């Protein structure tokens, strides 16, 4: 067993059956109605954003302000395109860059905080961002937000229908998963794990804990920024409440329920939780109670998340053979 491509922790093996199943699930929305497409698009964007959260999570930190970086990406890209008449693609990339920049400055200062202190700071940052967006209403539109956001367009191809946008969202989501795989099997991924497992030892072997955590934080927050950019172009409307504390907590919920220690956790979490409101058909309170109960049960009995359930099932099947 080579160490470059895995370690002692159980590795999920993707065999062909799973890939075919995934391919079917991924293409199914194109053959269903508008509503399925809508859910699929939201799921893909959530996969992207929660993947970002998982990079930060892998360093041992929990960001309760992740939605703020989505907000920054969304607002900067929309404002550049509408107020300054920038090309949409360029505006989107710049929005993502702004998220990276802000997370760099913030991370430089706060990453040395651990555990609950980091949570409180990121939570405060989330609130601060929301309040700033409300307050600077001449630019941001305040509580009314910004409406009539033009659809995404890349080199003239406009994503103004749901099937088209789903293609874009799916591509980005798959790309983010590919990025996760590449990242965590690279030297950097192992370095992140080292920093998270034993920071003093890691530092003494030449790994700069601060730098590694910072890069992880910036990468993760940039993914959130991209998610915000795309969300704005899809919904066509943004407001400070689109990216409030509830959104940050929703991302954490997906991360935890999906699986905090696995590359596939964000995918599972987003796929399971995004369409759930539809199952509850308007009984929002019951749905939220379900979220709360699920969160507590998973943390208590299955801390590895739903992903670990599949590993357990596989082990069970193997034992029976």
């Amino acid at each position, binding site marked *: 067993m080579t160490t470059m491509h895995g370690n002692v922790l159980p590795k999920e093996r993707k065999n062909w059956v799973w890939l075919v199943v995934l391919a079917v699930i991924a293409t199914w929305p194109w053959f269903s109605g508008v509503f399925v497409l809508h859910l699929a698009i939201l799921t893909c964007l959530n996969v992207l954003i929660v993947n970002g959260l998982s990079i930060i999570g892998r360093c041992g930190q*929990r960001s309760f302000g992740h939605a703020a970086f989505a907000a920054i990406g969304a607002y900067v890209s929309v404002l550049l395109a509408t107020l300054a008449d920038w090309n949409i693609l360029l505006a989107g990339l710049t929005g993502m860059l702004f998220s990276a920049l802000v997370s760099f400055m913030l991370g430089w*200062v*706060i990453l040395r*905080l*651990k*555990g*609950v*202190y980091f*949570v*409180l*700071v990121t*939570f*405060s*940052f989330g*609130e*601060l961002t929301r*309040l*700033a967006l*409300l*307050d600077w209403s001449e630019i941001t539109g305040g509580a009314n937000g910004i409406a009539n956001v033009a659809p995404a367009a890349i080199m003239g191809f406009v994503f103004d229908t749901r099937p088209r946008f789903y293609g874009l969202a799916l591509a980005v989501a798959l790309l983010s998963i590919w990025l996760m795989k590449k990242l965590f099997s690279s030297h950097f991924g192992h370095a992140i794990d080292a920093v998270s497992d034993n920071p003093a030892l890691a530092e003494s072997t030449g790994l700069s804990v601060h730098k590694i955590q910072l890069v992880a934080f910036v990468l993760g927050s940039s993914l959130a920024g991209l998610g915000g950019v795309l969300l704005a172009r899809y919904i066509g409307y943004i407001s400070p409440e689109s990216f409030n504390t509830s959104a940050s*907590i929703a991302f*954490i*919920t997906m991360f*935890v329920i999906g699986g905090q220690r696995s590359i596939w956790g964000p995918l599972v979490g987003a796929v399971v939780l995004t369409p759930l409101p539809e199952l509850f058909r308007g009984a*929002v*309170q*019951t749905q*939220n*109670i379900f*979220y*709360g*109960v*699920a*969160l*507590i049960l998973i*943390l*208590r009995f299955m*801390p590895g998340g739903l992903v670990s359930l599949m590993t357990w099932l596989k082990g069970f099947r193997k034992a029976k053979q």
Partner: protein
Amino acid sequence: MDWSVLLVQATINGLIIGLLYLLMAVGFTLVFGVMRMVNFAHGEFYMLGAVTVYFFTGVFHLPFLVSVALTFFGAIALGALLEWLILQPFRRDELNGMIVTVGLAMILQNVALIIVGPDPLSMPAVAEGTLQLGGIVVPNSRVYVVGFALLVLAMLYAFLRYSRPGRALRAVVEDFEIASIQGIRARVYYPLGFGLGVGLASIAGALMAPIFSVSPFVGAAPLLKAFIVVVLGGLGSIPGAAFAGLVLGLCESYASLFFDSSTADMFIFAAVMAMLVLRPKGLLGKGDA
């Protein structure tokens, strides 16, 4: 515009709000001090206090003081039970324990929504009439609320200062390691700390119910305030939380005379972030970052 009247009025309002913040913050810091856990469900216990008192006075027609007392002790019991049932496995696991309290908050709020519905309810008045002090007018109901709050605080102070379990609780909050060496048992003090902490939140909600409206959504703002106060005053410091709570209430009250609320709020969150980065222990707190 008589500035002296405005200022006195602002001071009185500030003190009332400050008392509320104090109760929330002391409870929050008690939970953090005992369990090293950030209790995201703290605001929902405030809400439960308000809703419960509404039912006792509005539906069962019990006197206000009795309702408040029932709510307080009920909340302590509920908190202790929840700690023992749900939070126990996370006593050493702050990060996941915190996420569990997020789940708990979701459950509490939505159960309340199902039972009570989303619309605000207003309590029957606690007392009629107003009190006149010079040019200042204070509704009697507020006077009663302040009186009860001060009574609760006095009782809390006496408990923490003079009773054995109270002193042990303070010892656990101030230094867990030393307390456990001295044989203070986690089995008792974890549920007690959590129960008392959320009991204080519930009493804050109960006392403020006649002043503000009652609905399942009233918990969010006090939770934020509790965070702010506790960070500024010091995570794990009861006097720090008390002091910072009063100061915040007064500052907000004065600031509202000059600034609009969102600017003031932004400034406060920036101050919270700065405090966490520069001096995570807060002004008076203990505990390591």
